[in-house]
């Protein structure tokens, strides 16, 4: 499950967000660099992004090439004769190269699934919050179901039926992850739809969809961005968890989750199989969470009570 499932309580009580995203954007970087934790997180994430993009040029070996003679070789620093920086896995594949390629899988899944669930959640939340009525009733019931059903279990069963694969994984995480966005957007829309500026737009004769997308939506980006950042982290964990359980990406694909699953088999004899992948996931997720926290406090400290 998304270990970071955001479960906003009492969301309707949140006041509208007056913070102007546009004005805050200008000072974003200078303010960010003032926080040590946030700066370090940005550096970590930059490394991960660069690794993901430049994987083919950065990795010293082919991450897919099985060399059974070279299997379970320990890392270079513990064995002077080694040529593999972080050693090799049970099929003789270079762990360092697979870690680099793993960043690709993690980020691809994390970001694409967020894009899918973000679009769906924001749309449904907007409609549900603005028009209310039947749409809203149905949406709220779906939220109840979703909250009472661990996301990981849902994703696990769907993946089990569909079979493993990167594209399916993105789709499943994207389609099951929209509820937090929907909830927060709905509550925000409900709190600002009766503001006078919305009424003013109606009085001016604006069309409903313009009011919804051009007047209301720009006012609720802050929580969406914050949830988005937390969800990237939880998607990365979900991808790794599902791959670890064998229903995420196929075992040949270098993912941090599959690497950990592989490493668990040899936990007593070769700990270098698990440690790099575990550290990579933890650092990445930690960096995203710190940045998400920082972003939340920067954009709108009042969100602290619900996110």
């Amino acid at each position, binding site marked *: 499950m998304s*270990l970071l499932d955001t479960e906003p309580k009492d969301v309707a009580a949140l006041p509208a967000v007056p913070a102007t995203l546009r004005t805050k954007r200008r000072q974003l970087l200078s303010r960010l660099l003032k926080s040590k934790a946030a700066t370090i997180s940005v550096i970590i994430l930059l490394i991960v992004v660069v690794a993901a993009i430049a994987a083919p040029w950065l990795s010293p070996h082919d991450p897919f090439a099985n060399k059974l003679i070279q299997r379970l070789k320990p890392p270079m620093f513990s064995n002077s004769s080694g040529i593999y920086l972080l050693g090799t896995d049970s099929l003789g594949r270079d762990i360092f190269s697979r870690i680099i390629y793993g960043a690709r899988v993690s980020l691809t899944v994390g970001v694409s699934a967020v894009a899918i669930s973000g679009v769906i959640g924001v749309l449904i939340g907007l409609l549900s919050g603005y028009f209310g009525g039947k749409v809203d009733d149905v949406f709220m019931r779906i939220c109840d179901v979703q909250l009472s059903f661990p996301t990981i279990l849902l994703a696990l069963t769907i993946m089990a039926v569909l079979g493993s694969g990167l594209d399916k994984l993105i789709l499943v995480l994207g389609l099951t992850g929209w509820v937090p966005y929907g909830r927060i957007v709905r509550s925000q829309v409900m709190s600002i739809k009766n503001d006078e500026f919305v009424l003013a737009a109606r009085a001016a004769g604006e069309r409903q969809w313009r009011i919804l997308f051009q007047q209301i939506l720009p006012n609720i980006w802050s929580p969406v961005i914050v949830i988005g950042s937390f969800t990237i982290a939880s998607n990365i964990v979900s991808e790794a968890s599902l791959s670890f359980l064998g229903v995420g990406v196929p075992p040949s694909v270098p993912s941090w989750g599959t690497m950990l699953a592989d490493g668990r088999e040899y*936990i007593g004899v070769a700990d270098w199989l698990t440690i790099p992948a575990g550290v990579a*996931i933890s650092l990445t997720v930690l960096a995203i969470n710190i940045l998400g926290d920082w972003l939340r406090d920067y954009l709108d400290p009042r969100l602290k009570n619900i996110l």
Partner: protein
Amino acid sequence: MSYVIRRVLQSVVVVFGVSIVAFFMLFMTGDPTEIILGDGADHMTVQQIEEFRVKMGFDRPWYIQYASFVGNAVRGDFGYSFTRHQPAFQVIIEKMPATIQLASIAFVLSLLISIPLGVLSAINPHKPIDRISTFVALLGQSIPSFWLSILLMLLFGVKLKWLPISGSGTWQHLVMPAIALAAFPIARNMRLTRSSMLDFMQKDFVRTARAKGISEYRVVTSHVLRNSLLPIVTAIGLEAGFLLGGSVIIETIFGWPGVGREIVQAIGSKDFYVVQAGVITLALIFAVVNLIIDLAYSWIDPRIGFGS
């Protein structure tokens, strides 16, 4: 009273929703026959497959199948497990005690650690103790539970050899899974307690209490803590879902013979009736736990339940 009825109805809707998801899971790729038979279909003739389809009732319209699925499920009949050679529901029920044992120990553990730590942090804001526990909490929220499990195994099982790596039977077997499962709730509840308490410490009634000359200890315990526990109680309800869901991974890693591992194994062996039975039973338990917590909560806090 109308709140109670509405809340019960809501739980019914939730379980109904879960049953729809669990049922249509089999139809996601089009034909449940293919999913149930899996690779086995390769060894069968077209006619045999067709006979199987008719025998299982997959040739009927979906709504009739769903109706009979619900009708059977209500009576505890989720079909027959091919791999376990017993009714799917029974397979799940037999594994239930182990899951509940693990989840409840993790639950108690999480409360025992998170709340005192959160309080300690909140009354010493920005002091070393606060900084350290806040960072550890952030770490706890960021480390995937399966990686934490492996780390624990490496340390206590492989290096120190204090605890068994997997299996069940003695209390030692419970230690690592319980810690791994509790880690995330500990982190979240600690942060929640801290922020909730810091919030209340700014409130006027707390300032008044201090101004009256009440000792700081009394202020914290009887004014701040009591009020800030309310949001934590809400979070605890949702925790049940997390613990049951998280147990899927933890049980699999540590070979803990609970429902979660059973579901994962059933998925591996395409024993989908067991999956359906497991998923619906877990959802049912979760719905009931949440219902009880919500009702208890509305009883404690009179503000809830009024209005809409």
